[in-house]
């Protein structure tokens, strides 16, 4: 609770003093939560320079959205951007080449890999959860089910990608954790959007 209050105080201060735009690929952007009395809990999204949009999980009919930065900033009080300061010293990250059928792992520079992952997950879609638990989307593919001994051989069947399940902070955290790019120990133990935003360097 103390941590929540402290973070909320920082949030207010940040709004008053400095709310910079994101400028590095995969920066986290934050703002007040659009819920009366719970604004200080906050809302975070992933600024995707390589996509040109903020990718964010919202409790709406289409939960995983790509919105302009202007749209993100217009909804509530904008906090600014935060970032993992060691991002560019991390090794390259392997990610699936596509979400329809992952037939190849591609090695990308860490900032681009995180945005690639966010973009893949957007293509898969996700459902919203208010809990701290999450499920990663999985790429689709063809599989041949086991044939029954008395019938003809089974035919390959297409299984589409599975949807993810996130809330706003777990979405950003799980993208950042792709390939252990941002180590788990860097994240706050009790995680909410505000504690996560202020656990990293502020632009």
């Amino acid at each position, binding site marked *: 609770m103390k941590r929540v209050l402290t973070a909320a105080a920082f949030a207010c201060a940040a709004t008053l003093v400095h709310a910079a735009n994101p400028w590095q690929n995969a920066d986290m952007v934050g703002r007040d939560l659009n819920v009366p009395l719970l604004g200080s809990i906050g809302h975070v999204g992933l600024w995707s320079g390589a996509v040109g949009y903020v990718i964010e999980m919202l409790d709406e009919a289409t939960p995983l959205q790509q919105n302009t930065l202007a749209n993100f900033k217009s909804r509530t009080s904008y906090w600014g951007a935060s970032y993992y300061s060691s991002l560019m010293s991390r090794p390259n990250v392997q990610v699936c080449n596509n979400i*329809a059928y992952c037939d190849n792992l591609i090695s990308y*520079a860490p900032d681009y890999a995180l945005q690639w992952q966010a973009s893949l997950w957007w*293509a898969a879609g996700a459902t919203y959860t208010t809990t*701290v638990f999450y499920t990663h989307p999985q790429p689709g593919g063809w599989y041949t089910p086991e044939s029954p001994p008395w019938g003809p051989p089974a035919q390959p069947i297409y299984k589409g990608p599975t949807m993810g399940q996130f809330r706003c902070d777990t979405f950003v955290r799980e993208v950042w954790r792709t390939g252990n790019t941002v180590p788990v120990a860097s994240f706050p133990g009790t995680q909410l959007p505000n504690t996560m935003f202020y656990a990293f360097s502020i632009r």
Partner: protein
Amino acid sequence: MTFNMRNIALAIVLSGLSQTLAAQDISASPAETYLGSVNEAAKSQNIGDLDVATRALIENQRVSAQAKFDTLWKAYQMYRTEPTLAAYTVSAIGFLKPVDRLQALKDEFARKDTPSKNRVQLVQAIAGLYRAPSAGPALTDADQTRNGDVLLFLQHAAADQDSDVVRAAVLAYSRAVPGPRAAALIQQANQRGALGAEHFMRESIIQIPALPAADQDATIDSILVLGGLRANGPEAVTLTRLLGAYLKSEKFTESIGAGSRQKLDAFLLTQEPGRTPGWASGGFPYVDYNNWLEARGRLAGVSDSAMPDFMLGQLLGSSSGGEQVAAVMAAQFGPTIASKATEPQRKQLLQRLSNTGQVSLLPGVGQHDLHARAVQMLAR
């Protein structure tokens, strides 16, 4: 002095510890502790405390899966009309995947006084009990029976009066068993206005490889109509992004008939990411541009090995600028293109990268890194 300070520090630590232990009531069972935390969260509306308590319960190895379900279910029953807590506890139950509690979840869904938001979460929890067949061990009889029950439930829920329930049920069915039945449910839900353009387009695309040719053509026609309703509108941008993401897979695109491929390519040709007005002006969509170009190659039957030549030809043969070159160089085929390009071709691409300054960019936004990397790859 040091000794005194140490004693004071020790006293503070012990005092804090005893207060923490007293507050937690170490004699309480995990269920009692959890329900106490939920009561506290109901008063304080503090999701952070609820996260900690729920994680402690679900990750407790000494508590059986059944006891975890019973505890969360009790918490849900206590607060089933309190939107935040009800949605939270049902969603947490969904992560438990309580395969032997399907009936309890269905009964709660069917109650007339269950709030809409709870019913949506219940649909998702029930859908999570479906076990997809896979290349691994065959499904047991119990799995198959439960799968049948889940799919039947989802079909019923897809005809519900509540659009949010319909959407949740159709999305779950679409992912569980892509094919003609799912495609029909998607169409029906869309006609009722329950899906929204993005869900309709995404789910329809996912059905394509699982449909017979005639159904495939009809599905593709329907998404192209929606994507083309408003020239350069948000639907066109979303459809372009989705098609780029899926059609860039060679195997996925191979499943599409020649006629539909031509229609898809004709649509993509009019929707170059970053060039048409529907795209945001806040930055260039590098990932989308690369996907779009790869998808156009796949629709033309270009294989993995021929893709670098195709992309290089497209970059050199069109009016591509620095953003387009950087987008392609940053992605999968960039390194191969850099190694295959001839000296004059590389000079031409570098020239386009150096002209980027003519294009309006947000100052300081990270795409400069992608441009710098592209220059590094080509200037060898």
